[in-house]
């Protein structure tokens, strides 16, 4: 896993609500993946800062992708919005 990526994800993927998604089992530290958390998601083709919207019982993680570059959004990583 790329050391910068907190949650391996296909940033192309959308759930039924049009949100990005992945699964908890692809998180570096699942305890950090909570609603409101800002973290880096992606894979070797693309990465972005995302805001976690929801975590389902089955481990599916839903998030919004911030359009800006990692560099521009780096200061947001680790923050949690209520």
């Amino acid at each position: 896993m790329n050391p910068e990526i907190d949650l391996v994800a296909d940033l192309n993927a959308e759930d039924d609500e049009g949100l990005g998604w992945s699964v908890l089992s692809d998180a570096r530290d699942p305890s950090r993946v909570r609603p409101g958390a800002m973290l880096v998601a992606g894979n070797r083709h693309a990465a972005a800062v995302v805001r976690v919207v929801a975590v389902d019982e089955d481990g599916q993680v839903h998030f919004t992708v911030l359009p800006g570059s990692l560099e521009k959004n780096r200061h947001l990583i680790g923050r949690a919005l209520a």
Partner: protein
Amino acid sequence: MRAGRVSHDTVRTAWQHRDVKLRRLRDGDVLDDGGTFLVRGGELDPEVLQADAERYHSVYGSYGISVFALLDTTLEELAQRAPLVRFVELTLVTVDAVLQAGLRLEPTGRNPRHYTVAFDDLDRGVAGLAGCEHQVVPNPYHET
């Protein structure tokens, strides 16, 4: 554990003995113009496609890969918006090429441009998609 606002229907599949989510399909949404381009961020890297399809299977109980149809928009418009703006390269493939590879195109989710390339056999599906005639173009709107 359940947090947040997203809700889904689930169904138990007898052959898997576990719950999987039902994907919401847009009624009557069929890509009937075989020349329509589909866009996917990144190259058609079989290793990444396999991982993405397996992740899809873990939630929805079938194999799928996300693409966006160039319908009522331009590549330039999609390329500068999330999520595609986050990709250095974009892959373009036609509807015909996907169907001729024996894959299905399902209109999934509320985004009218989002489709899932669906298949039942992981290895064949990944090989079929990766082997489709396609173009890879740089995304001029991407910022590192």
